[in-house]
């Protein structure tokens, strides 16, 4: 798959500006079309189309809107789109959403300042951290030659498994999202030689062509888990807890348990489904070892990942997972989670991921097992900068979730769990709503976004003078935190 234009699927996408052309004044001279570098205008002598204002990136180089200046008839007006005041939230502000959509459309990084599409406005977490670029890299590196791949298996047992990018797709179950969404993600991640996790809702047959790039999730409800689904794949993920709702089980409300979801999970249509917390068979580290052994008894080649949230003793859990024989420890912080996760859990339980990552990294290192364990972080990874920050703090790679949804056109309305599900047909299993987009388009959008991220990642690493993403692990010296350091920022100049 290659990056290529994948336009928004709605007729009038949301843009930053509202650009109006007064038809009474317009002479259809075509000046605007020739002036605008973004292709907003389309005018022929017969017809002038409604300006495609969502394409307007902002004032031109002159600092003015050239179209307004240039129009001989004074027919064009530009004003800010008031919708931006309601779009998004502190974690995903409107600007970040719009730029993410643009990356998903074009496959390229936006022309704007990179902080615009790499920061949220949450006042904490990754949003208070900045990259500290050296004036001159220690070594001249060609961005095109930067290696983004990471190894997921660093232990003696199980098959080797390396992915082409330092991230893979987090678990989203069939039931929480539509099959079009699942296929879109699977295709995109397969094209990147990465992986995508099934989530806890079974292994739909539509994923079979992507077996090589699928992670089977074994979660506390054990929905849809069978020997077959464990044997199909190269990697199996235990979901002990989810950062968005640590200490709570999963819960799929009755409305989303449609006939097809019920069939996949072998349950009753219309009745809510529970995943308990915790695993009823695992109440200790030793039980956990037995649990890992079980998966290896079913699929001896599997790479086993252990996904946990970030309680204060998460470092112990990480070391325990190493001794249990897991390959990957996956820490899920609380910044992620869809609308279905209760706010009280998302906002109040467990440790922020930016504290948990260095803690676990250091603890594993002190134990002398850091090199044998792959350490993955997740929970609110929105951008290339977030990836860089998580890895510089000590992780080997990250897992994405919400960003993939954004690429598909999510508007962050937060109503994922209610009624028939997502109005945009992403987080739904409603037959009608799920028809809204074609997986080919979806895959292209997700691929495009990641393609833009990859080029940013390469640029950033080159600016640091690093030739591989693996060299970045634990380089906290390349970060600064606005609350703790008064030092000037590389970006500020």
């Amino acid at each position: 798959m290659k990056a290529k234009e994948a336009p928004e699927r709605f007729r009038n996408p949301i843009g930053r500006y509202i650009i109006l052309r007064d038809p009474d004044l317009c002479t259809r001279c075509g000046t605007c079309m020739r002036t605008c570098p973004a292709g907003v205008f389309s005018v022929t002598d017969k017809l002038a189309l409604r300006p495609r204002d969502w394409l307007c990136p902002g004032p031109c180089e002159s600092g003015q809107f050239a179209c307004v200046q240039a129009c001989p008839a004074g027919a064009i007006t530009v004003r800010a789109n008031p919708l931006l005041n309601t779009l998004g939230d502190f974690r995903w502000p409107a600007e970040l959403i719009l730029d993410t959509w643009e990356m998903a459309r074009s496959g390229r990084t936006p022309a704007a300042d990179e902080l615009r599409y790499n920061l949220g406005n949450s006042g904490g977490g990754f949003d208070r951290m900045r990259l500290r670029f050296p004036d001159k890299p220690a070594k001249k590196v060609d961005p095109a030659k930067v290696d983004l791949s990471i190894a997921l298996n660093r232990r003696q047992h199980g098959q080797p498994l390396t992915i082409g990018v330092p991230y893979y797709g987090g678990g989203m179950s069939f039931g929480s999202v539509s099959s079009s969404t699942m296929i879109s993600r699977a295709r995109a991640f397969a094209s990147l030689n990465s992986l995508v996790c099934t989530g806890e809702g079974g292994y739909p047959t539509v994923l079979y062509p992507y077996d090589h790039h699928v992670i089977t999730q074994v979660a506390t409800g054990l929905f849809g888990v069978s020997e077959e689904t464990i044997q199909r794949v190269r990697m199996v993920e235990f979901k002990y807890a989810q950062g968005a709702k640590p200490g709570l089980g999963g819960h799929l409300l009755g409305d989303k348990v449609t006939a097809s979801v019920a069939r996949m999970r072998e349950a009753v249509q219309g009745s809510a489904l529970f995943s308990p917390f915790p695993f009823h068979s695992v109440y200790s580290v030793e039980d956990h070892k037995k649990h890992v052994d079980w998966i290896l008894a079913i699929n001896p080649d599997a790479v086993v990942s252990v996904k946990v949230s970030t309680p204060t003793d998460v470092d112990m859990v990480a070391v325990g997972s190493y001794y249990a024989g897991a390959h990957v420890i996956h820490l899920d912080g609380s910044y992620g989670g869809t609308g279905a996760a209760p706010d009280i859990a998302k906002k109040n339980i467990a440790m922020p991921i930016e504290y948990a990552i260095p803690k676990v990294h250091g603890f594993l290192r002190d134990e002398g097992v850091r090199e044998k364990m792959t350490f993955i972080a997740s929970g609110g990874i929105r951008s290339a900068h977030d990836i860089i920050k998580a890895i510089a703090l000590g992780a080997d790679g990250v897992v994405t979730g919400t960003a993939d949804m954004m690429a598909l056109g999510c508007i962050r309305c937060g109503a994922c769990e209610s009624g028939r599900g997502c109005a945009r047909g992403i987080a739904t299993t409603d037959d009608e709503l799920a028809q809204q987009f074609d997986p080919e388009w979806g895959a292209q959008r997700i691929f495009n976004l990641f393609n833009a991220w990859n080029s940013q990642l390469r640029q950033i690493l080159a600016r640091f003078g690093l030739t591989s993403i693996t060299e970045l692990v634990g380089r906290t010296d390349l970060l600064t935190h606005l609350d703790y350091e008064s030092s000037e920022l590389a970006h500020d100049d």
Partner: protein
Amino acid sequence: MTDYAKQIIASRRWLCSGQIPSAKQAEEGGCGVVGFACNVPVSGRHIFAPSMQMHNRGNGKGGGIAAVGFDPDKLGVSREVLDNDYLLQVAYLQPQVRRKVEREIIKPSYTIDHQAWAATIDDYRDIGLDAEPPAVYRYFVRPAPEALEGFAKDRGLEGLSDRALEDEFVYQTSYRLNKRYYASLGDKAAFVLSHGRNMFILKIVGYAEQLAQYYKLEDFRAHLWIAHQRYPTKGRVWHPGGAHPFIGLNEALVHNGDFANYRSVTDYLRQRNIEPLFLTDTEVSVQLFDLLARVYGYPLEYVIEALAPTTELDFDLLPQAKQKIYRRIQASHIAGSPDGPWFFIIARNDPANNQFQLIGITDTAMLRPQVFALQDGDVQIGLVASEKQAIDATLESLAAEDERFSPIADRYWNARGGSHTDGGAFIFTLKNDASGPTLICTDKFARPIEIPSAQQCRFGKAKPTSIDHEHLERLLAEPPGDDTAIQLFELAVERTADWTFENLAAFCQALQGYRANSDDHKQTALELLTLLNDRKYPVGNKKPASVLEWIRQTLRNILLATPKISDQSTSRFQLIDCRTASGLRPPADGEQVLVIDAHDFPPEGPQSDASLLVGAAELGWKRFIAFNYAGQRFLGCGLGPDTAGIRIDAYGSVGDYLGSGMDGLELHVHGNAQDQLGQILKSGKLVVHGDVGQTFMYGAKGGEVYVLGNAAGRPLINAVGRPRVVINGTCLDFLAESFMAGDPLNGGGFVVLNGICLDQSGNLEELPTPYPGSNLFSMASGGAIYVRDPHARLVNEQLNGGEFANVTEEDWNLILPYLQENEHLFGIRIEDLLTVYGVRRPFEQVYRKVKAVRLAVLASMIQDSED
């Protein structure tokens, strides 16, 4: 609170620094625990066998044992000194500090009657240890009179009885030593391992059996032993201070589990002037126990109640008088009650009552596995462990050395945590009197568990005479037909009650000869012995466990006599074991059954018997007999989808996760099974001729399952699809929580719960209630439970979301075929199930249905709005 308790607590004010870390030092988990109490002293090697099998319950980073009740000569002291002195054992992590510790603390505090280094082997590396175990110095002491007097005065403890004062003196002196030389130092120097009377504790960084080897305990005898394999998650451990057991005063405690409320428990203790020094929840557990038992002076029953409170329906079913007391205990001590998964084994010397005790207590929610067992014959032994195979391994080891022991216990059972029935705890008490100790087993409420006395005879120890059954002998002389095994079984059980062990020996010998005739004979002999192993039948005045030993040993010998796969033979049976595993090959023409001797296989991993079986199935083997199990896990896992046509018969102590993931095959367990059985079971048939452990069929999707006995906690949680299960006994609690198995009348799943057991003659007996737990079918949205409850003992309070319904003709027709198969498998006749007080009743008067109700909060809003 008594004045005594107030005095003691006040006297400890100085012990607290106020700087108590709120977090545990290391998480640890499941751990393997085992303990036994025996009326004859037995050597330390027997605590080995189970602990070796429990390696996968530890990680070699902490092993410990405690022993109680010694032979004074072996310790170089008189009986009087052994009984009256405190046996102070100090671990010197830095041996050079010993003189200083003695000068500063031990000599000023104590009169020393005897002292010596604990004997060790020369080099710890010889037995594979990485970290040198601490040098242990052993002192037999009494508090020095002047020190004791000063202590009483300083601490305001005047007026205490002599022994009570001495006990507290020892407790606080050890605390002082630990604080000074352990807790306050970055580099730990020394700590007190134990200080109780006639008991000691040892711990190392390693496995428990390495400890026995290092400290030369293999031939050292004691009445009571407990052992622990630790699984700390902190990797670099250089000394065993954090290993179990921990000491109270005269009791040692090992622990399997992990508190969720460590902070709350330490706060509770801090309010009573106790601070942890080793920062593990095991240490605070024994601090709690000592506080409740010695300081507050609670009887054991109340101590147990304070630790594991009785709740829900169980509380309501307690007698009024008990409720009144328990409510007060709970009100006072709930903050100190450990929450989360835990299981304690406590070894205790109770000198005031001249007895030793082994106590097992499980938490109210029964989140850790536990098994108790009792053998009462020529010798008496009570055992408790986290896994049944640990008990079997101990008994096997004892039986191999001493023929008074039998490799099979007379009784095995689980405790039901926080219950009104047994209280979730059992106590083995060795009462000492002039003729030596006698073992008594009681539950929390002091109700005894008794084994009827009967004749005992070990396998091979009776001289074969004759079968004394003409008809049986005649049939054994004929060539076998299809149902010969059943005919032989029916003939044999006509006589089993009257047979002497000599007759039984002759019968077993005859079967040995019989099987040698041909493969058909062998097949018949195996079927017959399997029936004799699985079924109950009258055995007269012989011990059932003894008869079973003869049957099982004969069966094992016949299986062991199978031609090896590496040898040239034309037999339909081929034997493979750990040593010959590399010789696995596809079945040749006529070869049908792969017999796997599982005994020496590792418990998991690519070299395990379970992996071998997967490989064999890939090569075309379909029929397996796997025997000699010693806890090996994952049997029947990994075979993948569509395995119909494969059948496995398993004998021995099979391990956890058996059949978890089964999709099509048939698996018969001829005995008790363990935990996590049949998880995510998709299809196929699972038959257990015994009990099953915790979280049985968690997340199962289907399958046909028959259990002769009971299920422990949390069976069928989160099961979906169409599992169809018959449980003839009962379950501890949480049966079918979040059951989502559709509409049973339209292809969904169900559980038939019979609530019965079979007596030794095979007659059906009703259990006091078909389901004792407080949570049945909670939050279930599909499926059903059909429960045999002719006396309507189940009440609405036990349901949390379900509702009772009548069993209709349609329901009965649905479950009837499963009851017929149940009859076929276990000999439990439908006729008998429908007979109540000797009267045959219609099914709807005997069975009740528990079905799902549509709860508004769970149901689809859309559908509701359309309704």
